[in-house]
């Protein structure tokens, strides 16, 4: 009961946490504050490569934007429906290989290769249909296992098929760009993809489709008994998520310049995307964005500083464990809750009613008053 109440408080406070400093004393609606925060974040992201021009830094920027897009796309399916996929690298790899093969076969070179990005999305989306039809028949742990199995089948196929170049992989068309500016087009494309999927995610969450997804997360059978055609709805989200992930994979491939089976179909990708979403806030709008923004640069930094790659993987794995154990609801909901509790305490102090017994009982009490402003509207909780 108290967990539920406080979670609600977290939702109400989440947007406030993100933009509270900006809004200051102004009384803005949650949605307005969220919009302002998004605009500021987008502006900062656009300015980033203009301020930090070093290729080492902008390369981290590209990787980060790719992961923001991938994590938001993953969350759009897994976070909203509760079906945890550890097989999204399938779409990532499919997108990468699709562009590689198409560029090779159609002799596409230079910057025309970017025109192939939608094709990568299409290929990943088409693959998502049979993948989803098989995997979405089962739930929970079984679903996770099926996605992992499909992932390994795809990885094995890629390393053994002739068309994928076997273990040698496929090289990307050569781009005759100078090293100083090479990263920037990739950065802005990845940013556009990330912003686009974040917008889509926001639209879906408030929509009828999104509500059905969240109903499935809470009780799929009950949703079905209320006329929700659950398989279609789940599959649609899976395909949308796959399309975006495929395009992320393709962009990554063009950026790196080559795809090998173990990197196109990389189990670490699955793990990273899930970790970032969980770290930020599983199923929320801001969580996956912030999760990727915080963790991917951290990981890159670690890889740069620690020459031993095993050490960085070890740290990565430990972090995953800690997040799942102690922060499974994510930074965003927890921080939002803390902010709501703090505000409630301050308001009470302002009203001349000190919290009885000091700080100790505070965590249980504050979410009530804190969520009052959002309660009467009955609008979609986000």
């Amino acid at each position, binding site marked *: 009961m108290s967990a539920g109440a406080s979670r609600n408080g977290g939702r109400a406070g989440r947007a406030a946490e993100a933009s509270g400093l900006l809004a200051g004393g102004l009384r803005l609606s949650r949605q307005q504050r969220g919009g302002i925060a998004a605009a500021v974040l987008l502006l900062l992201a656009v300015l980033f490569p203009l301020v930090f021009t070093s290729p080492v830094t902008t390369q981290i920027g590209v990787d980060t934007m790719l992961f923001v897009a991938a994590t938001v796309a993953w969350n759009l399916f897994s976070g909203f429906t509760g079906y945890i996929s550890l097989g999204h690298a399938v779409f990532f790899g499919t997108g990468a290989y699709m562009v590689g093969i198409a560029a090779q076969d159609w002799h596409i070179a230079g910057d025309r290769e970017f025109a192939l990005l939608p094709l990568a999305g299409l290929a990943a989306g088409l693959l998502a249909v049979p993948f989803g039809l098989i995997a979405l028949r089962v739930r929970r742990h079984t679903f996770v296992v099926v996605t992992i199995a499909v992932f390994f089948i795809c990885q094995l196929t890629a390393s053994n098929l002739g068309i994928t170049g076997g273990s040698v992989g496929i090289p990307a068309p050569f781009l005759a760009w100078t090293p100083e500016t090479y990263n920037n087009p990739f950065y802005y494309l990845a940013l556009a993809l990330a912003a686009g999927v974040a917008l889509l995610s926001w*639209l*879906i969450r408030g929509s009828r489709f999104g509500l059905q997804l969240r109903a499935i997360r809470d009780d799929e*059978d*009950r949703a079905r*008994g*209320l006329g929700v055609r659950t398989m279609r709805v789940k599959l649609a989200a899976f395909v949308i998520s796959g399309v975006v992930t495929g395009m992320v994979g393709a962009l990554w491939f063009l950026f790196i310049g080559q795809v090998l089976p173990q990197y196109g179909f990389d189990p670490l990708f699955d793990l990273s995307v899930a970790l970032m979403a969980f770290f930020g806030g599983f199923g929320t709008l801001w969580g996956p964005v912030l999760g990727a923004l915080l963790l991917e640069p951290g990981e890159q930094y670690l890889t740069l500083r620690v020459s031993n790659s095993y050490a960085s993987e070890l740290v990565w794995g430990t972090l995953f464990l800690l997040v799942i154990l102690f922060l499974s609801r994510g930074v965003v909901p927890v921080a939002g809750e803390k902010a709501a509790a703090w505000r409630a305490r301050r308001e009470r102090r302002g009203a001349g009613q000190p919290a009885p017994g000091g700080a100790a009982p505070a965590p249980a009490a504050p979410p009530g008053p804190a969520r009052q402003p959002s309660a009467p509207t009955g*609008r979609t909780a986000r």
Partner: protein
Amino acid sequence: MSALLRTEGVCKAFGGVQALDGCSVEVEQGSIAGLIGPNGSGKTTLFNMITGYGRVDSGDVFLGDRKITNLPPDKVFGYGIGRTFQLTRVFSRLTVMENMIVGAHHSERSQARGLRRLRNALARAGGPATRRRAMELLEFTGIAGHAGALAETLSYGQRKLLELSYVLMADPEIVLLDEPAGGVNPTLIGTIADRIRELNAGGTTFLIVEHNMDFVMGLCDRVTVLDYGNAVVAGPPEVIRTDHRVLDAYLGTAEDGDDR
């Protein structure tokens, strides 16, 4: 009066247990029908077979003249059969209002065709008409004050009311209630009975599984008794109350409260 809902010789076995053994039940249009029987007599299984939560081994289910045997739950709901569950099932991390809007999907969807359907899917959940209707129903069941709260913050009795409310969002022809009074305080039981009567007066048919005999006998026009997966007797409450087969079925096995 004709039968709105009818099962004909429905059989269902779970492993070696014959949960339903040629069960035939009729519910007349516009009535409030009761379904009673000792624990394990197959009441909930019959509900599941009617509403698509499981497949019958043999036999048929009809809604009016339409055969709905083994249709999936979403279709059954679309044809106008709503149901609640013995252990309430609400969408705990959605608000009460959002729960109601989920119940309205079917009716909202059926108004759109083709491309408009896609636009319909991406429209904001719950148009003004839907929200108005939802508030009416929530006021009717007395939980309108909680519309903005997460469903998981509701009490058990309130969840039962929410379940009834969102099922009503689609204006079902018949509502199947699985123990609406189980685990609910006496005052609320009275409220639930009143609401059922009002809805029935408005034309909704009910089939109710319930162990609370006062509730069933006071509310239902006709009561069917299940025993060992079979309908042993059906009739008006005053007849059922004194029927020796009913006493046989319940003797030594009857329990007050609910079976879980």
